[in-house]
Structure formats: structure tokens, C-alpha cells
């Protein structure tokens, strides 16, 4: 395991993996995202916070390839990208953990794990799934994110709720993703579930992935995140680091738009470099 990154501000700037420059997405006449600038760095957890309708979901859709942006650019490792499909985004190394968990409940764990990228052996007319390799890889990948002793043949619905998200993260790690987009379920999570989930996310950060986490829980975000991107009305309302805010402040920021903009203005005045990001 790589060493966990230091969190103090003096740390050298991490490599920017995904950069959004004036990214705009329109639904009809409505700008779901309006000239959004943001940077997501490798080995960092960036929590995206905002009210419903602030553009969080659209951001996830663009990053994961479900929706193409209309204007601006999305840079992955400096290369401008424009994903046509989730498959393309996945091939480019951006894996997404969906709130619906992207799990087919009746299929076995290993089938879910390899869905869309199954290992095969043999030549074409007889090309078949490599069952042993798939089962083995599933068990090992799940152990890596802190879920040991999975029965790869059990249906995915037999997994505990948190384990299902862990499955998605294990999948991302296994397929060599460079960035992980986590869209948290809007339903409240139990402690057990968040523990498992947090473990998996931290494991992914330990592997040097850039993590974009959309969450509704500011306290949880503050616990786990390195940076916080606050969205309002499709625009960046605040771009803070762990040193700028504590959990209570983040909660307050989440609570109301007015407080949020005042605070952002104050913070930008205090830290002029925040405005540039």
C-alpha cells in the first residue's frame, strides 16, 4: 500500500488529472453547468457538494460519458476529451460508481464484477468466459477494498449494501482506472454501509486515483475529502480545501445559498488564489 498523502497545505501540488475549463452543459435553454472550472487531482478526494439541481448529477454524467458537454473542455491528463459513451470514458480510465450501484441483482457477484469486460479464452466460435480466472480475480479485488471472503457465485443481491458499492470501486481499481467518480445514493446510509464504502474509497485514493465524490452529507465529506467543490446553479460557489473549513462550516455552507456565497466571497478575499481555480 502506498503511503497515505499528507494533508497539510504545504504539500506539493498533486498532479491534475482531470481539468474542466469553462465546461457548459445545456438542457434546452437551461444551463445545467455554466462555464464550470475545476481541477481534480490524482491521489485526492474531491467532494462535490451542492443542493439538488446545482449540477452535481450533470457533472457526473459528463465525467462518466453519459452526456456530452456542449461547450468548454474536459482535459484528462492534459488531453481534451469528449466521451461518446460510458464505454469510452471507462476505456480512458474514468470509472463511475452509480447511486443505483450498477448491479444486476440476480447475477452472481463475479458476473457483475466483470460485466462488460469479461475475461475469455479460446478462439472465436468457441470463445468462452474464463470462469476460474474471473472468480479468482473477483475475490482478490474485493479483498483489496476490505471485503474479504466473498462468495463469487452468490447473487449480487446477497451482498450487503455497502459491499455493493465496494464492488463497483473494486471493479474500477481492477480495470486500472485513473479516476473514480462516486455518485452517492441520496438515501441516508447506515454506519455499516458508510464504513465499508469509506474503506473502499480510501483504498482507491491510496492507489493514487483522482476521486470525485458527489455527496449530500457534509460531515462525511469533511471526514473523507481533501478538497470540496461547492456547486450552485451550475457554477462553482466555492472551492475549498480541508484547511479552509471545518465540518460545521461545511454543513452551514450546504444549508443555504446566501451564507454560501457570502462565505465564498470572504474566503476568496482571504485566499486570493482560490479565485483562480
Amino acid at each position, binding site marked *: 500500500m502506498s503511503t497515505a498523502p499528507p494533508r497539510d497545505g504545504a504539500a506539493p501540488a498533486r498532479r491534475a488529472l482531470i481539468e474542466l475549463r469553462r465546461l457548459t452543459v445545456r438542457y434546452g435553454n437551461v444551463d445545467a453547468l455554466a462555464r464550470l472550472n475545476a481541477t481534480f487531482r490524482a491521489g485526492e478526494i474531491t467532494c462535490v457538494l451542492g443542493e439538488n439541481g446545482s449540477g452535481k448529477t450533470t457533472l457526473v454524467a459528463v465525467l462518466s460519458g453519459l452526456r456530452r458537454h456542449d461547450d468548454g473542455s474536459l482535459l484528462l491528463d492534459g488531453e481534451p476529451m469528449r466521451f461518446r459513451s460510458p464505454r469510452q470514458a471507462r476505456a480512458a480510465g474514468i470509472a463511475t460508481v452509480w447511486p443505483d450501484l450498477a448491479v*444486476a441483482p*440476480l*447475477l452472481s457477484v463475479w458476473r457483475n464484477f466483470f460485466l462488460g469486460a469479461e475475461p475469455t479464452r479460446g478462439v472465436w466460435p468457441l470463445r468462452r468466459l474464463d470462469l476460474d480466472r474471473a472468480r479468482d480475480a473477483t475475490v482478490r479485488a474485493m479483498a483489496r477494498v*476490505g471485503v474479504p471472503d466473498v462468495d463469487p457465485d452468490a447473487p449480487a443481491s446477497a451482498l450487503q449494501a455497502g459491499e455493493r458499492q465496494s464492488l463497483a470501486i473494486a471493479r474500477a481499481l481492477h480495470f486500472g482506472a485513473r479516476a473514480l467518480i462516486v455518485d452517492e445514493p441520496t438515501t441516508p446510509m447506515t454506519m455499516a454501509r458508510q464504513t465499508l464504502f469509506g*474503506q473502499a474509497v480510501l483504498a482507491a485514493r491510496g492507489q493514487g486515483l483522482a476521486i470525485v465524490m458527489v455527496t449530500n452529507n457534509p460531515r462525511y465529506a469533511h471526514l473523507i475529502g481533501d478538497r470540496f467543490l461547492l456547486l450552485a446553479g451550475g457554477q462553482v460557489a466555492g472551492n475549498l480545501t480541508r484547511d479552509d473549513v471545518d465540518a460545521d462550516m461545511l454543513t452551514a455552507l450546504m444549508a443555504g445559498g446566501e451564507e454560501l456565497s457570502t462565505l465564498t466571497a470572504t474566503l476568496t478575499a482571504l485566499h486570493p488564489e482560490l479565485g483562480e481555480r
Partner: protein
Amino acid sequence: MSAVATSWRLGNPAVEEAPAADVPSPARHLRPVITDRVPPFGAAQSDVPPARRLAGRVLARPSLPSLVGLLLVVAVFAVQDLDLLGWGGLATVLDTAAMLGIGGVAVALLLIAGQFDLSIGILALASSLVTALLIGHADWDVWPALLASLAASVAVGLVNGFLVVSTGLPSFLVTLATFLVLQGSALAGTNALAGSGRVGGLDDEPGWSSAAAVFGATHQIGDGRFRISLLWWLGLTALGAWALWRTRFGNAVLASGGARRAARELGVPVRGTTVALFCLTAAAGWLIGTLGLIRLGGVQATTPGLGTAVDFIVVAVIGGCLLTGGYGSVVGASLGALLYAVTREGIVLAGWDARWSQSLLGVLLLLALLANGEVRRRLKAVPRS
């Protein structure tokens, strides 16, 4: 451990946040969480005895109800001491089952992917009419005519598939429309071209004998005449079962029906798979039509009604396919076809009114639906949290 517990409790607003000074470095206190130590809330080891687990697995097999039903029905008719288990009865039953099973296997795969096809029965008739007209009226050779009607059938499948994936309409309605269009045009077209509803006398055309060897060969055992349709059926069942559980295509089929959105998000070619499956059912319809055409040496343009298409779906559902998609069994569909055939032929041999078989089938379907619901519940036993 205590540091970990403290940190996680931060999620609860009621608890005072521990100042960062308590822990020397955030990295340090987070590290234990991501080791491979068994997590406090991790997967609990199952303490269910192995026998129970085995029973659970067997009960969760989708083909189980059809197997039980088949054994029951065979037992009932065996007690009646019918000819059913002799060579003659066996050949009749297997022939009926083969025709149903070929369609049932294709429809089962389609149902697993979450779609319906009502047009397969009429495609069987329409494709054999096309073949017969091409041979009898356009004077084509048998093989080119067969290939042309196969191409036409697959084209219908493509239309069905593209309409379903591009409009998002329920496939039930799309294929109902196809069914009506095909039924009308097949019957009216045959009448207009051939002057009557019957096209026959094809068996002295060039290429007929080789086609008859492939689609119409028979083998006599005792007083039973076993037809080659049996081999087509068994071959398709084996191929379908293998493809479903052992290939990437099969995984795409299962995922298309079980979690369509998730499958799409993960890059599974859901649309392509769906269209391919509609082509498969269309091709199965063509095979059924061709087997019948070669056997009879001609074809009668009758109104088959929706019954034949529903039969295939009934067979697939009895075989354990969920109507909601996502799970099912190809072997089960074949067992369902066998169950259907035994019931129908058994009732005929017992000298009862043949129409009773419909009622019995309805009861079987209902039982199968209930059993499938149970299988689904066992599979889905989701822990609440």
C-alpha cells in the same frame, strides 16, 4: 481501533468532533481502515449448514418447476398405462416438443433480456409461404429460396429489434403490430399470387432431396418415427445454454434484462444484444416454418392466431424465465416444451377432449409463475440496511 471508531462517529452530528490534534496525522489513523483486516461490519461468515445451502441453491434453479412438472405429468400418464412411453408415443411427443422447443429456446433468451416476441409464430408461416412461393411460382431452386426466406425473416427481426431499441416502446406492442402486418400480408399475398391459400407439390423441385435430408430426415425405431427436428431442438438447446452461461454474449443478455441501465453504463452493448435476439427469434421462426414445409411438401395459409406465439412464451415461462427479464434458463424452456408436449399428447392418447389440454396448460402456467416468483425471491434475498 478506538481512533477509527471515533473518526467514524463524526458522521453523527450529535457527537462532538474530535480535534485533529488527538491523532498525530490523519493518514495514520485512517491507515488501519484500509488494511486487509476483517472489517467490523464486513461480510459475516454464513453459518448455514452445507445441506441447507445446497437445498437453497437447488431451489433457486429456475428450471426446477418445469422438471418437477414434467415428472408429475409423466407419472400421471404412466399410471394410465398409455402408449405414451412406447416408441410411437415417444416419437410423437418429442416431435411436438421439438417444434415448441426451438421457438421456446429463442423466446427464452429474449425474455431473459427483458423483451417479448409475439411474431415468431406468424413468421414460421410467412417464411414457409415465401419459400413455397419462390419455389413454386418463381421457379427458384430450393436452397436459394430457403436462404431468401431466411434473409427476409431476419430482416423482420431487425425491424422488430430496431423499433424496440430506438423508440423504447414495449416490445409486446411492437411485435403485436408486426404480427398483424405479417398475418395480413402473408395470407392476402399468398391468395393473390397463388390463387389459393395452398402452395404444394414442391417435392420434385431441384435441391429438394438435399433440403429434405437436412430438415426432413426421419429415423425409424420400433413403431416410432423420429424426425430430425429433434436434433435441431437438442442442438439449439445445448448451444443456447452454453451461450447464455459461458459467453460474453450470454452475460450481456442476462444484464440487459436484469439491470438495463447499469449494463449500459458499464458499456455492455445492450442495444446490439437486443436486436441480435430479435433476429434470433425470427430465425427460429424460419426454422420452424422450414421444418414444417419440408415435412409436408407444401404449406397451407391458415390463420394461426396469436396462440402459437403465446405457446412459445408459455413454454419459456414454465421453464423458469422471469417475465421481468434478468433470469431464466434455456434448458428449462426445453423442459417446458417437453412438459407441454407430454400434456397435449397424453390427453389425446387418454381419449379425453383435446381442449382440456388448454386448461391444464393454463394451470401449469399459473403454477410456474408462482414458482418463478419464489425462485426470484430466494435469489433476491436482500438484507435490509
